[in-house]
Structure formats: structure tokens, C-alpha cells
């Protein structure tokens, strides 16, 4: 599910540095970044599986791995929304923490049900995201600066609320269904006598829904095309009659909403809603989309790429964990494997470009 700005509009804007995937049928299939990532993920999973057969243990490895991939894919989608307009959201983790704080309050003080609390959190996330977007659109200040400032603001505010409202700096009320949501797999969902796989967590359905909705918006709707146009060139978008300020607010609101969903998934999988939710979100939020082909400059996104980019890093980490790689070496190996993965991608792109030149 990748969505470039429409071919006509791209041609009209005459942007010189479009990625290969945007040139339609000229790129050979093997040079497609997503296919490359998919092959890498499969190869690495096979390698780790051969070295440690426990890698395919459904209950202890695959289930938690898929739960992680699902959560970080949603984190990646949160960043992807603002990357689509050429912006960044450095407060993606803190937006998750803020939204979950509201959700926690709704569980602890207002006794909301699991899904009502989630809804409140999603609205809070969209609202804080929209606020960031509004400030950016209104003042023209770079999104980097605005979201960084918002991050600091929330960094101070959130602990204040937690220490004021809780004894243990966490909302520990667990509404009905939270425990089941963490532990249940598709094996617990049956249509008649046919049940799903025990290796796939139910929590992953949230990521599937998020991917379908984001993919649909960017590939099938006018809003998605306008967001990508805004990312490609704000001036051109304005000249085309697109309300770019409103699109900036929309993209940031979508980002905040998805950050809230990721925060909820983390809270469910770890067990409680605490102030530190989202602290580890920022780097993975960029890693998934960028590895997957989403452009930092805006104008091109890839939902599938975000899933595959996230899967790549998660598979590497899980494999290294299983191999018993120590703390000193873990991040070195992680970095080296990513570097090799990206280098092969670059080699593939260069080979593809050479082939194109020869064909001309």
C-alpha cells in the first residue's frame, strides 16, 4: 500500500528527485524497496530459525514478536502521517503518554469501559496533535521546533498530573477485557469451528485496522492526495486550491491519534498506564517508515514499507536476543545488520538505474 502523489500532479510540478517507485512500470520488480525488505525479513527469520529453532516457538517468540511489530507499526504510521507533508513529530512518544494519561484518568476516576477509555484517548491524541498542527500552520514555525517544544511541555506536565492523582505514578485500574486483550490470540477468535492462529495476538488487529484506514486515506481519498501534494510542494498545493493549513492540522491530528493508539497497545501489553509510556517511541517511529521508503521530505509514503521496516528491526533484535548476544554487542550487531540491509537496498537501486539507462 504505497501512495505517491498523483502522476499528473507530479509531472506538473516537475520535481526532479522522485523515488524510483514513482516512475510506474520502468522499475524492475526486484528493485522495489518493499520486496527487498520482505526478502530480507524472510531471510533473516530463516537464518535465526536455523541457528535457534526456538525462533519459531509460537507462544514464547512469535506471539510477543508480532505484538511488538504491530505496536511499532502503529508508531511508524503516526510518524508517517506527518512525514507525508514533509513535517516531523518529535513529540510522538509524549503524545502517546498524554493520551494514555487521559485514558488512565477515564478508567481510574470516571470508571469508563476499556473501549470508551480508548476512544477518549484517541480523541485526546487527535486534539493534542491538532494543536501542534495549528501552531505550525498559524505561526509558520518549523514542525521540528514546535513538536520539540510540545515534547518538553508534556514532559513537565505529565509527571505533575501523575504524582498529583496517583500513589505509584501509574494508573493501575484495569478495566474488564484488558488482560484478555493482552493474552488472547486469533486462536480465541472463531468463526464456527474454524479458529485463527495462536501465534497472532489479537492486539495486532489494531495495527491491521490502522494500516487499512491510513492506506485507504492515502491511496483512495482526495484528502490523502492533498496531504501528499502539500508534502511535495506547499506552494504548488496552494496554487491548486488545497487548503494547506488545514491539511497540516489534519496530518498532525492523525499523527496524534495513531500515537495514542500505539500508547494504548503498549499499556495493554505491559499492564498499566504510566507516565513513561512512549519514551521509546521516537527512534522507531522514524525507523519503520524511512526503512520502508517513506520520504523525509514528504510527498511519498508507504504503509506496507512501514510494516516491513518495523518487522526488520524487530526480527533482528529478537534473533539477537535468542542468540544470547550480550548488551555490549547487541546494538553493534543491530546497527551493522541494518547498515548491510540498507546498503543492499542501495546496490539494488543503482543496478536498477543502470539497467534503465541501458534500456534507453
Amino acid at each position: 500500500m504505497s501512495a505517491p502523489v498523483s502522476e499528473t500532479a507530479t509531472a506538473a510540478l516537475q520535481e526532479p528527485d522522485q523515488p524510483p517507485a514513482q516512475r510506474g512500470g520502468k522499475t524492475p520488480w526486484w528493485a522495489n524497496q518493499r520486496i527487498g525488505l520482505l526478502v530480507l525479513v524472510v531471510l533473516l527469520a530463516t537464518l535465526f530459525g536455523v541457528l535457534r529453532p526456538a525462533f519459531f516457538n509460537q507462544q514464547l517468540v512469535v506471539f510477543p514478536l508480532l505484538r511488538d511489530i504491530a505496536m511499532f507499526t502503529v508508531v511508524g504510521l503516526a510518524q508517517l502521517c506527518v512525514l507525508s507533508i514533509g513535517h516531523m513529530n518529535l513529540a510522538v512518544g509524549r503524545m502517546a503518554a498524554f493520551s494514555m494519561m487521559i485514558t488512565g484518568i477515564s478508567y481510574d476516576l470516571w470508571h469508563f469501559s476499556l473501549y470508551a477509555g480508548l476512544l477518549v484517548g484517541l480523541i485526546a491524541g487527535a486534539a493534542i496533535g491538532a494543536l501542534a498542527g495549528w501552531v505550525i500552520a498559524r505561526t509558520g514555525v518549523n514542525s521540528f521546533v514546535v513538536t520539540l517544544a510540545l515534547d518538553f511541555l508534556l514532559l513537565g506536565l505529565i509527571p505533575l498530573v501523575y504524582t498529583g492523582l496517583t500513589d505509584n505514578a501509574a494508573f493501575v485500574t484495569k478495566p474488564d477485557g484488558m488482560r484478555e486483550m493482552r493474552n488472547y490470540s486469533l486462536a480465541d477468535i472463531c468463526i464456527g469451528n474454524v479458529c485463527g492462529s495462536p501465534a497472532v495476538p489479537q492486539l495486532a488487529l489494531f495495527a491491521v485496522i490502522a494500516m487499512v484506514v491510513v492506506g485507504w486515506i492515502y491511496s483512495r481519498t482526495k484528502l490523502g492526495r492533498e496531504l501528499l501534494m502539500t508534502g511535495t510542494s506547499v506552494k504548488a498545493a496552494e496554487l491548486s486550491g488545497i487548503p494547506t493549513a488545514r491539511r497540516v492540522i489534519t496530518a498532525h491530528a492523525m499523527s496524534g491519534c495513531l500515537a495514542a493508539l500505539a500508547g494504548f497497545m503498549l499499556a495493554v501489553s505491559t499492564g498499566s498506564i504510566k507516565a513513561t509510556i512512549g519514551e521509546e517511541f521516537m527512534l522507531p517511529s522514524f525507523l519503520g517508515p524511512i526503512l520502508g521508503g517513506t520520504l523525509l521530505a514528504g510527498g511519498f509514503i508507504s504503509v506496507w514499507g512501514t510494516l516491513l521496516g518495523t518487522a526488520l528491526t524487530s526480527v533482528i533484535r529478537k534473533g539477537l536476543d535468542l542468540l544470547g548476544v550480550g548488551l555490549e554487542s547487541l546494538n553493534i550487531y543491530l546497527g551493522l545488520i541494518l547498515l548491510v540491509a540498507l546498503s543492499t537496498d542501495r546496490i539494488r537501486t543503482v543496478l536498477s538505474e543502470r539497467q534503465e539507462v541501458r534500456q534507453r
Partner: protein
Amino acid sequence: MPKSALWYRRTAVAGLAVVALAVSGCSTKSSNDSTADPAGDDASTGSSGGPVTLKDGSSVKLALIPGGAHPYFQPWKATAELDKTEFKLGDVTFDETGEWDQSKQNNVISSLAARGFNAFGIFGVSPTDINTTFEDLKAKGFAVGSLASCPAGNTNSADFCLSTDVEAAAYKAAKATIDAIGGEGTIVHLTGNNVDSNTQRRIAGVKKAVGETGGKVTELPVVTDIDKDLQTAQKAVADLLASKGKEIKGIVTTAYNPAVAAADGVAGSKLPIKVVAIDDDAKILAGIKSGGVSATVAQNPVGQAYVGGWLLALLGSKQCTMKSPGVIVDSGSFVVTKDNVDTYDDERKTKTKELQTEFASQLSCQ
């Protein structure tokens, strides 16, 4: 309509149909359907009054898992090896790759379980979340001990918790500080992550000691979130001494990096401030011997890993079960001053032996 657009529409419709089915058309088992098998529940008979000897530890693969890398946990590494040789365990590992993130620590634990480890001594990163992890492990039949930190709240879902009572340790440290400043004046408390329930307990312990002075000792606002690294702590201490150094008579620290930074900072500033530290790092002990640090509150990491390993081996080999699962035992905290700096370790070793006896009375063994 172009073919690709038609494909996208069909894919979107199919995707939404799948989601709709998942949400409405399918049946999800209720929580009552759960057939989770509570772990380690095989009935055992008999009980012991003294330390119990492990009959056969070869089936036990013990994992000691701190929240992340920290000097406090380094004694666990050597003690894990001691556990292996002394109790003839199948295997032991010390894994500090949790990087102080509960989600990452959970991944590390599940990976170790997949590698065949079946007894876990865990320092949970998040006291409010760790019970969830314990419940997951127990449901899979593993022996689980909460080491060096107990879950927040009144419930411990692990088989046992062997930890410093952080509130009591902070109380002792504050009392030592108050004694060091002569019973009156202003003190300040330096500690770690504010949004951590253990920090909140430490803050409560210090406040309790200050409250008992009836107003003779006052406390400046607590300085939190400075245990991330030594540099952060050093900066905070330098700022504190520059702004309020003349007002402060004592500093009580309940986290490792602030303790080291406060000892160094006060020594460098030549201010007549009494510092009470935490733990027995070589640097802090040297400070006590030289007089730069008035006292420190040592904990018992070796005892936690040794007694915890012994207990987990008994539980993991199914030789014993806990009479009351979830029991919480204080592993001890020891005020170290210039007077007992050379002998406090004997006191700690005695406490470790007492811990074994105490736990033995909590066991039901075959």
C-alpha cells in the same frame, strides 16, 4: 475505471470486510474460558524448619534479569555462577539487555524462556507493570522471584519477593543524615526517576524521618530524575550547591549516581555539608574512610542473588512450593559509617543466612 484503481477498491472493501468480521461476526472466548495452568502447583508435602538442601538442580536453568545495566547488579553476575556451581544447576545466565524498558525486558524474558530457562529472578523495570509479566510466566509453569524490587501495590504475583524495603532504607538514610547534622537544620533529598513507585516510597521514607524531628529539621524540595547518568547528577549537584549550598546542612541520597555526585561535589566545594549515600560502591566506601561521606546505606545484592537463586532452584525443580505464594521479605539494609566500614559485610552475611532460614519456614517441600 483503471485496473489498479479497481484493485485498490476491491482490496479496501475486502480489508474492511475482514475487519468488520473480526469486530462483529466472530466470537471471542470470555475470560472464564481461560484454561491457564497455574504454575508450580504440584502438591508437595512436609515442611522444613531449617535451610533446605536442594536434591537435584540439574533440571533448573536459572536466569537473573536486572532492568538494565547498573553497577548495583554487577554482584549478581558472579553470584549466578556461584549458584550454578554450589547448587549444581543446569545452566545460569545474567541478562541485562532490558535497557530499562519494560517492553524490552519482557522480550528478553520470553526469549530466555524460549531458550529453555525455567526459573527467573527478575528486577522489574516498572513496579506497576511487573505483576503482569509475573502472571504470564507463572501461567506458563515457570518459577519466578521478584528480586531487588517488589511490585507496586499490595499484590506480588511472583512466587516471592526478596528486596530491600526501599522506604525503610530511605528512612534509615534520612535518620543517619539527621544524626550527622546534629538533629537540626535543612536537608535535601536527591533521588531517581520521579514517576517510579519506588522513588515515591523513598520520598515517603525521608519525609517520615524529617517529620519525626518535630520541625527541627526541614527538607528542601526533593531533587528527582538525576539517576540517569553520573553527568546529569553532577550537574544537578553543582547547581544545588551554587544556589543553596550555604543553607544546606545535609544531603541524603537514595540513588547511586546522585550519591557519587554529591560526595564528589561536596568534597570539591569545601562546604560543611554532611552527605549520606546509598550502596557500597568502592568510591563511596573510600569517601566514608576519608570522612567526605558521613554514612551510606548498603543493600544486599549478593544475598538477593544467592538466596533468590537457591529458592528458585527449589521451586523450579518442583522439590518445594511456597506455602503462601507472593510472600515479601526484606533482604536488609545496613547503615555504614566510619566505625563499621570494615565489618558491615559480616553483618550482611549473617543476614543472608537468616534469609535462608526465614524462607525455609515458608516452604512446603517433598
